[in-house]
């Protein structure tokens, strides 16, 4: 049985302008020790999906349907007191911006100890001991002294380590990381990713990595969800996805990436803007930006159907298999030619 199983999740927000369909029919499962990469642009619904999973959307404005089973137990719509027992202890979360997610007027130690005391029946001294230990584990130098510092006394990378420490202090089974390295320099990003991998190996933790960086996904994930317009448009093992992506949007994402080994003059660009979730386009949500659009795409939403490799690689696209294969081969050849020219 999967550790986290999400089925047909829907999140809609009521706004003055109408109903925003932020998440539409997202399903996936996550096993112990695995990493799920979730990629998509801003507004693709990737963050809202996991806020919904954690029960963190404001239910006064949101309408949520579907099922979220954590360790066999349904947690969607569960009471906030039972959710609070899970959040921060069995499921940890890291947010993107470490400066706004830490309390600026409390010492780091206080914030870490709070997380321990909330979920465990231990003394303050024990909570402090655990806090120092976790700071050492995330490789903060002189942890026993720095625990009494305020967030502003830390650099960006150090703050992100504190956020990770806070998410990990109760040894969660699942870690949900929402763009944990986006605001950081490449060198710091490499440190943080290495640290997450190390901690995952030690604790057999499952990780959900929400990001817009395909490079990060390629380095860390086992399985990948590509999200667009509130839906999963492609779902595959990481090797399959990068070896043979099937959906035109994924092609566009891969093509628009400047790469170190490719020196073409122009990047492939996806024209236009991400779709409005208030008035989504009819049919396939990618059809207004797709280069291979035909009539059926404008009428009918394609199913998330299995491709040639079976259930492990599913995608939404009306294009016939042969045609998709032909287009991808051509793109791959073009990329390879540029790569060897470099």
């Amino acid at each position, binding site marked *: 049985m999967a550790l986290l199983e999400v089925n047909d999740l829907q999140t809609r927000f009521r706004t003055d302008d109408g109903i925003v369909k932020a998440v539409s029919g997202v399903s996936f499962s996550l096993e112990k020790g695995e990493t799920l990469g979730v990629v998509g642009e801003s507004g693709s619904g990737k963050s809202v999906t996991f806020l919904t999973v954690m029960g963190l959307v404001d239910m006064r404005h949101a309408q949520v349907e579907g099922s979220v089973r954590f360790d066999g137990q349904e947690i969607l719509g569960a009471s906030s007191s039972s959710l609070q027992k899970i959040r921060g202890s069995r499921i940890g979360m890291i947010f993107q911006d470490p400066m706004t997610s830490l309390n600026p007027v409390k010492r780091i130690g206080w914030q870490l100890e709070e997380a321990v005391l909330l979920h465990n029946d231990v003394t303050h001294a024990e909570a402090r001991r655990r806090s120092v230990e976790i700071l050492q584990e995330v490789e903060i130098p002189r942890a026993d002294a720095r625990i009494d510092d305020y967030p502003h006394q830390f650099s960006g990378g150090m703050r992100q380590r504190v956020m990770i420490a806070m998410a990990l202090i109760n040894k969660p089974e699942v870690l949900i990381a929402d763009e944990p390295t986006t605001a950081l320099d490449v060198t710091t990003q490499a440190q943080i990713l290495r640290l997450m991998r190390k901690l995952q190996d030690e604790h057999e933790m499952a990780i959900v990595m929400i990001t817009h*960086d395909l490079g990060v996904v*390629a380095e860390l994930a086992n399985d990948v969800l590509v999200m667009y317009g509130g839906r999963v448009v492609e779902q595959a093992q990481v090797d399959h996805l990068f070896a043979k992506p099937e959906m035109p949007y994924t092609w566009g994402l891969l093509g628009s990436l400047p790469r170190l080994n490719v020196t073409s003059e122009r990047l492939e660009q996806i024209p236009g803007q991400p779709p409005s979730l208030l008035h989504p386009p009819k049919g396939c949500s990618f059809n207004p930006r797709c280069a291979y659009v035909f009539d059926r795409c404008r009428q009918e939403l394609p199913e998330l159907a299995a491709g040639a490799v079976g259930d492990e690689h599913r995608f939404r696209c009306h294009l016939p298999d042969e045609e998709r294969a032909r287009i991808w081969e051509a793109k791959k050849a073009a990329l390879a030619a540029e790569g060897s020219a470099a």
Partner: protein
Amino acid sequence: MSELLAVENLQKYFPVTRGMVFQKEVGQVKAVDGVNFTLEKGQTLGVVGESGCGKSTMARCIARLLEPTGGKIVFDGRDITHLNRNEMRPIRRDMMMVFQDPYASLNARKRVGSIVGEPLEVHGIGTEQDRKRRVQELLEIVGLNPEHFNRFPHEFSGGQRQRIGIARALVINPKLVICDEPVSALDVSVQAQILNLLKDLQQDFDLTYIFIAHDLNVVRHVSDRVMVMYLGAPVETGGKTELYTEPKHPYTGALLSAVPIADPTLGRARKQIVLEGDVPSPLNPPEACRFHPRCPRFVDGKCNVDPPELTPVAGNPEHEFACHFPLERWPMDEDEIRRRPALAGAAE
């Protein structure tokens, strides 16, 4: 081709003061400390480095938004290092900036037309009719609808706002455009649109760019020459191909190896050099080679005593690096990088 910009030994120190009323200088932050480069017309210089390495401060000094502490800036044949506000004014027409945050760099209370037209107004160019025509022309060039003239910035997405920022920078026909992290806040697909746009505009209008970014992929894509900065000074400069395929400075190597590769097979095969720790404080920079506390090739008694000079690579005067123990080939893994310095040190 002619030289548009020459920067010699540029320095910018910020005083650190103590005391509420009688401020006493107790130290200096050497944000930029000895930057040299020249930039030909129509070329792009990419500047990379971690946050806090002084790349933005350098750009602001060149645009004379900050007063340099020392050094010399020659723009279009004229020394502009110590010109005052009035003398700078006509020169500002020729150098414009595009900023990182498209949300913060546009005045939320002004309409797009007056934001883009402001440089024309400031410099008193044309009549109101001329200006409006020029602004609409520019909006079209950067891929916006000229009818958006009367809209407010909040009605646009991040990518569109960045286009507005670019239109504002180009409306007055500058010679030099300084782009400070212009695509860092954007999604990949939009980032590609903006990068392509900047390239097209460079060709169409013969622009010269200084392009600052922390993303090495982006910098390689747009630049002709690349300068890698660390703690206020360049550690390596070179043509983009040499710098990326044969880096000499260990810091450049570490930066290159830290970039995630969007290909799981290649990614698993390569060995990363992960630097420990953060960039040290520019208030008390390390002695001699400023990179030595984090350097995998550190040799005690050399790197922390003798500051390395920028020296050209044999056979390529365009490619310079400041290191006593440069990388002898690329790619290298962490062990190879560490092994070498002891031998080289003994030989000296």
